[in-house]
């Protein structure tokens, strides 16, 4: 990059939804509560929280909470943003990645030395049956919704899972997906903010092996293959080196954003090959090329597992697993360490917020603040933030400072 860009002062609220013991759909905190909490969480880590710019990401607040003009909430969250440039960003479930990318651009352009980046989503405001219609906006609604499954996006990825199974074997695919589910819940149980933190189910693998039922849900996917409906917010600071100094954030409390790999697919087109995430492949490889490091140097990964099949496809598109070999990869002693946070399956998936949440988790791992703290073998980490059916993809490569 033209200059060094850093991420620091990350904060995540608890991700609420079905699964958390305290979840009560009749009495949920309003969205303002989440925004205030995450802003306070970030600003508490900053000596002088005077940012040059604000960015806020959310996918479908206009429908879930009937609220648009979200940039108007940034000064509400951080009073020093009053009178400063503020922007709202949207890229479906890949909103978080796009929000980070926009902040990095501001730093690189020299327009800002520090950007407060927030992202959130409130999905429990509507029942899942209607939420499905809203989330279908991440695809080409006018052409795809009618023929789509009642639950839409699970239907989209069920088709990918079906193609994968047909190509590589039903049992093997099902076992890989069940194993992924098991690992994500185990990780979530170590993370007090995760939606699945209270999950006490005994045999997770067996649950993951539940035979899909097309009459009540879908072919090829069961309920355990799907991330749940979540409310949550997250925030982080993106800053130049000067920006960090002005904010009073020590370098050791930050990580460096060393590369972005960004790729957009044509939403009107169906995937050429349903068993391959072509846009993710482009984004990851671009990011690695810009970072000038090989894939093997990445020791920490946060990938976008909105459905368990997405984990398999992301691993293969990135190059960690050969085509059809994700099952073996997931079952092995993995390098990199993946989704220690619990991922989307375990942490939860407030759609617009997940990308920023992934960056916060990489930050916490590399600065020793993670709930499920690991000892990464290299100083490099990556997140992959995906919107829609592998359409809007951002990979962010970071380095420990």
């Amino acid at each position, binding site marked *: 990059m033209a200059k060094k860009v850093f991420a620091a002062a990350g904060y995540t609220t608890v991700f609420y939804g079905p699964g958390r013991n305290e979840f009560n759909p009749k009495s949920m905190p309003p969205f303002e509560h989440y925004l205030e909490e995450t802003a306070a969480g970030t600003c508490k880590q900053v000596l002088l929280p005077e940012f040059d710019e604000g960015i806020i990401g959310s996918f479908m607040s206009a429908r879930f909470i009937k609220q648009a003009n979200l940039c108007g909430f940034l000064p509400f969250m951080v009073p020093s943003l009053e009178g400063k440039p503020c922007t709202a960003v949207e890229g479906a479930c890949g909103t978080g990645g796009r929000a980070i990318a926009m902040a990095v651009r501001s730093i690189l352009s020299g327009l800002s030395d520090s950007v407060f980046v927030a992202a959130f989503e409130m999905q429990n405001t509507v*029942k899942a*049956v*209607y939420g*499905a*219609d809203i989330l*279908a906006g991440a695809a080409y609604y006018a052409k795809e*919704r*009618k023929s789509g*499954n*009642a639950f839409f996006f699970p239907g989209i990825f069920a088709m990918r899972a079906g193609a994968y199974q047909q190509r590589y074997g039903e049992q093997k695919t099902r076992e890989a997906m069940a194993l992924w589910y098991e690992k994500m819940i185990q990780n979530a149980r170590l993370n007090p903010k995760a939606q699945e933190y209270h999950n006490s189910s005994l045999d997770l693998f067996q649950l993951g092996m539940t035979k899909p039922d097309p*009459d*009540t*849900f879908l072919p090829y996917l069961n309920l355990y293959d799907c991330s749940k409906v979540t409310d949550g917010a997250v925030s982080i600071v993106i800053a130049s080196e000067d920006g960090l100094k002005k904010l009073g954030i020590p370098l050791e409390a930050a990580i460096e954003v060393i590369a972005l790999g960004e790729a957009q697919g044509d939403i009107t087109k169906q995937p050429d090959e349903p068993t391959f995430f072509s846009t993710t492949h482009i984004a990851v490889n671009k990011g690695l090329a810009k970072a000038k490091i090989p894939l093997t140097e990445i020791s920490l990964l946060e990938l976008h597992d909105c459905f368990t099949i997405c984990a398999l496809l992301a691993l293969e598109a990135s190059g960690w697993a050969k085509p059809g070999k994700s099952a073996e990869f997931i079952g092995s002693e993995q390098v990199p360490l993946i989704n220690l946070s619990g991922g989307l399956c375990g942490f939860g998936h407030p759609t617009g917020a997940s990308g920023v949440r992934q960056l916060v988790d990489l930050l916490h791992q590399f600065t020793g603040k993670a709930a499920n703290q690991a000892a990464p073998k290299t100083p490099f980490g990556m997140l992959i933030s995906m919107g829609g059916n592998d359409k809007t993809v951002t990979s962010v490569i970071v380095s420990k400072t």
Partner: protein
Amino acid sequence: MFFEWGKIAVLGASGKMGSGISSLILQKMAYQKAANPSKQIQLILIDIDQNNLNQLKKQLKKQLIQFAEKQIIYLRKCVEQNLHLVSNEEVISNFLENSMEIVEITEDYHSLKDCQFVFEAITEDIELKVNTLKHLSEFVSLETLFLTNTSSIPIALLSKQVGLDQNRILGFHFYNPPLKQKLVEVIALTAKSKDMGEKLALELNKTAVFAKDVAGFIGNGHFIREVHFACELAREVSKERARESAISLINQVTQTLLLRPMGIFQLVDYVGIDVCHHIMKIMQKYLPEPTLEEPLLLELLQKGVKGGQHLDGSQKDGFFKYADGKPSQIYTSNGYKDLSEHLLIVPFNYTWKQLTSIDASQRQQMLQDYFQQLEKQETFEAELALRFLFKSAFFAELLVDTQVAASKEDVKKVLMLGFYHLYSPFDVVKEVPYG
């Protein structure tokens, strides 16, 4: 699909049971019509209470939406060819509109011509039922089958007094609430009506238990006798303490120590004190027991305290006043007073709720161990619980011995499905000690 819905009527449609039956049948009809929109289906709802009929329409719509949300996969398939219905919201809205077109709310009995069935769900009062059914039978066809939701009146008696052929009247007793409860007690006088009862139960996705045509049938045959015994016990216990304390203790013992979803007096409130009283009078008239009617229930009724539920399902005052669905105050002859908790030692600290989530075979052993432990306790409360349990076992055996129930298994089905008991007394009582 076990038969094709055509034209059905529900009498007493806006009452507690009538509204539930109406909603259940409407959902089944709407499900069939969704796949075949040109099908001629009609649901006629009749009630003398005009005020509640508007409330009924709202309730039907609300429950139809909940039903449609669960059936969304099926409903989307039904409207695959309709390009104007894209989102789930649009599909559900369309379903609601089409389904409500099935419903006709009327006072005009002429609408009943050519009905396949008339479900009768009016007050549990023989004279009222007989007069109403007699009057209705002038408007319907000779093929119309009457299904009565009576929980106590012998069907043969209704058949005779109304002047209906025994093939044309069937006891079809839903449990509360009809939408959720799996159990239906069926009392058939002929093989033909029994066959129709079986088909209808299957179509409504219910578990049918067939009972002999004896007042009270199986459910009330057991429950009302338990209520009578509970009142007897209350009189006995109130020799040593205040009456309200005795009632409260027996209620708590029957819930907590017998591991039931609610205590016996709370259950009376739930069913309705007026309903229980009516049933007691009917059973008193037609059964050999010397006495089943209870002065305690009559006392509350004379003070206007009836129990039962509001149309929205919330509990009305009865033996208890309720806060958040739980008893908070108890009836005394001088008004309600705050409830005091009785300290009970519960073996293994088991609760009904906890045990409902345990696998049935594991639970069976846990219950055996529990009651063995309860028998070892030498407390007054444990003794009360065991006396009640033994009496409950006696009543269950009586139903089998008098062939009201075809088998112990049928009594067990009624208690477990209809009353949410975790066990039948046959499971935990080795030998009934007395009558």
